[in-house]
């Protein structure tokens, strides 16, 4: 007797008599009915989800349950006390989440589509150098070239500090070096507070690099007064290209 490939349902042979067709169809129909009925309870029905963001999680062997989406900014955490073994929760205050890691190159580097789910941003630059020496290193937010950057700072030269305060179309984050010597390369720590605010965003930063005539320690306290939340940051030098270095952006709760 012939059978179907997957479920082995009985079908008429090529030599079967036509007079037995009704019986063969009835046998096949009954087999299909039995199989479909049995499988109907084996799959995960789409009705298990009720809303956007719902997840399906296992609660035990061969058992699943709906996990409703959390609220904005929450993250999914392993939780053995929850029925599904996972639960949405708010990360502890002060926790860091790495959002991006980028190698510096080119005349400018833009990191875009920065998540808006955190309170502050922490930007770390390591081992950076460029094609030119002792040039201002600048950053911009949201590609904004308006005079929306108000900042004051110092350049430490060992025995001298300089202060400046101005509103410009860029914010300086340090001085460039073209030295590949590890101890000469540029490092920077940039804190951006309330970056999702539409009001003034506070920026505090410190950087260091070694240029020919002095050890550069550079720091500022500044404001970005653009009216939009910060979703992108662009880095570039006054002259020359970014040759190397790593930029890491962290979201801070």
């Amino acid at each position: 007797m012939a059978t179907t490939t997957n479920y082995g349902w009985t079908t008429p042979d090529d030599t079967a008599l036509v007079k037995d067709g009704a019986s063969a169809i009835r046998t096949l129909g009954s087999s299909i009915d039995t199989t479909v009925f049995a499988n109907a309870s084996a799959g995960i029905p789409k009705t298990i989800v009720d809303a956007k963001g719902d997840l399906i999680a296992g609660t035990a062997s061969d058992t699943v349950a709906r996990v409703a989406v959390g609220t904005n900014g929450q993250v999914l955490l392993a939780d053995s006390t929850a029925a599904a073994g996972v639960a949405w929760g708010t990360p502890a205050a002060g926790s860091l989440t790495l959002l991006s890691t980028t190698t510096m190159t080119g005349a400018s580097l833009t990191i875009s589509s920065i998540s808006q789910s955190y309170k502050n941003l922490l930007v770390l630059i390591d081992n950076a150098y460029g094609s030119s020496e002792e040039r201002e290193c600048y950053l911009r937010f949201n590609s904004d070239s308006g005079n929306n950057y108000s900042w004051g700072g110092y350049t430490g030269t060992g025995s001298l500090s300089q202060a400046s305060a101005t509103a410009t179309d860029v914010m300086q984050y340090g001085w460039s070096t073209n030295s590949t010597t590890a101890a000469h390369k540029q490092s920077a720590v940039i804190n951006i507070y309330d970056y999702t605010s539409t009001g003034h965003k506070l920026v505090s930063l410190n950087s260091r690099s070694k240029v020919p005539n002095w050890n550069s320690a550079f720091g500022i306290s500044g404001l970005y007064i653009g009216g939009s939340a910060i979703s992108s940051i662009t880095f570039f030098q006054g002259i020359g290209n970014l040759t190397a270095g790593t930029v890491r952006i962290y979201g801070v709760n």
Partner: protein
Amino acid sequence: MPKTTSRPMVRIHNAETDEVIDREMNDAEFAEWEAQQAIAAAADAAKTKAEGDKAALLARLGLTEDEAKLLLS
């Protein structure tokens, strides 16, 4: 034929998708970049001239820079 231009390259990293694009500057970016280079070149020239003028003046007065600082302190 391969495209040959001399415009500087820029890198854009989408932090959401992790997509990295390296491309040449567009017209607006290139125009701003050229303006920035001109400003920096002018500042360099002014700095060089000021340093030259200062050195020439000290030479005429027969003073070293430290001696001039002492007089002004």
